[in-house]
């Protein structure tokens, strides 16, 4: 099994922990992530203006290159996934825009690359059953709240990822590695996204609402698939505490880190030191390190 892999900018720098763990887990599970050559930034936002064709060029170029190098493209970052998947869909369905884009990027791409998120690879290609079989470290009793955020789920007709109101793929994943998934109503809400740049206090409030809901429902940790969610939920806890003195704090762990842990990978490879709220004390307490 081989998949083309588009890491995206953030996974090369701030989100190395998401990336490294993802690559290591792929090895452990026996599938190959072949990094797309000479990739560029996807633009980090799918353009919502109907006349903004320019912003479609970077993701279109990524897709066209992927077509040259393989057939299925995967990402770890939810934002990149959203931008690339929506662009792919648009190229499939809108002939006029397709032609414009192709002229612009001087390539000929018809929208025929399959775009899957890493979680979908785990579910559909590897299978949660095989993951269950490959588990080496018992995470039993670790209560983890899966945070989906926006980008994987919406718009549902285009993302075709999971039920937009009550998704379950993340829970299924957690169960496959023997974690106890904690259902919480804010799992499909927004972390504040790029408002962490535009209106930081607003993003802080969004993050607070999410985390307090996870805590109230008994979570010991929250897991994410997205460096932007991770930033808002993890790195902003200091700000949250400044505004809400009832907030106790909670570790935010990338799903690939949890997977790596379960697969028995050496802890150093999982780069827990990069997480702002250090998850190691919790993992230690649970006897997992």
């Amino acid at each position, binding site marked *: 099994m081989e998949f083309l892999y588009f890491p995206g900018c953030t996974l090369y720098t701030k989100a190395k922990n998401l990336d490294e763990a993802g690559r290591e887990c792929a090895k452990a599970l026996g599938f190959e992530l072949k990094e797309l050559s000479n990739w560029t930034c996807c633009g980090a*936002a799918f353009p919502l203006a109907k006349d903004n064709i320019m912003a479609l060029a970077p993701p279109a170029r990524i897709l066209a290159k992927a077509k040259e190098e393989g057939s299925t493209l995967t990402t770890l970052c939810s934002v990149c996934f959203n931008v690339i998947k929506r662009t792919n869909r648009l190229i499939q369905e809108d002939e006029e825009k397709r032609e414009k884009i192709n002229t612009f990027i001087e390539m000929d791409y018809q929208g025929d690359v399959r775009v899957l998120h890493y979680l979908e690879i785990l579910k559909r290609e590897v299978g949660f059953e095989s993951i269950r079989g490959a588990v080496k470290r018992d995470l039993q009793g670790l209560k983890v709240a899966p945070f989906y955020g*926006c980008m994987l789920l*919406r718009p549902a007709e285009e993302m075709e990822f999971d039920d937009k109101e009550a998704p379950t793929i993340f829970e299924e994943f957690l169960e496959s590695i023997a974690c106890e998934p904690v259902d919480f109503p804010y799992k499909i809400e927004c972390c504040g996204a*790029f408002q962490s740049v*535009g209106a930081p206090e607003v993003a802080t409030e969004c993050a607070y609402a999410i985390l307090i809901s996870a805590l109230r429902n008994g979570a010991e940790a929250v897991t994410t698939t997205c460096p932007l969610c991770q*930033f808002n939920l993890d790195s902003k806890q200091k700000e949250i505490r400044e505004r809400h003195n009832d907030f106790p704090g909670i570790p935010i762990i990338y799903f690939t880190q949890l997977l790596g842990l379960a697969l028995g990978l050496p802890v150093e490879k999982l780069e827990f030191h990069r997480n702002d709220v250090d998850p190691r004390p919790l993992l230690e307490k649970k006897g997992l390190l």
Partner: protein
Amino acid sequence: MKIEISRGKVHNEFSQKVEEISGQNLFACYQCGNCTAGCPVSFAMDLGPHQVIRYSLLGLEKEVLECNTFWMCASCLQCTSRCPKGLDIARIMEAIRLVILRKKERLDHLEVAELSEEFLERVPQIALISGFRKFTS
């Protein structure tokens, strides 16, 4: 408190520009408020997304451009996913941002120079890039 309504003011050039950029029909809105009800950041907005749609339809350009709603919008698509009329409200928010950002004066909402060193150190690229996409021309 009073607005004068006439053929020339309602659904004026501004309204039409918003419709054109967003590809949405402002007349289709029910004013049911579902968008505002589900919006995760409406607590910080001066007008709910549904009000912005109403004001835009009525051609109240100044009031719309002065409110913070579309700058607060996080493009999370919660509104879009539940609008009973199938309006893509997030696209309307983007269109209004662009009405400003595409002006000759280039009225950026975000000044990169004002972001602190410490902040730039912490924040991931993805937040910066998408933020610039949304807030700068």
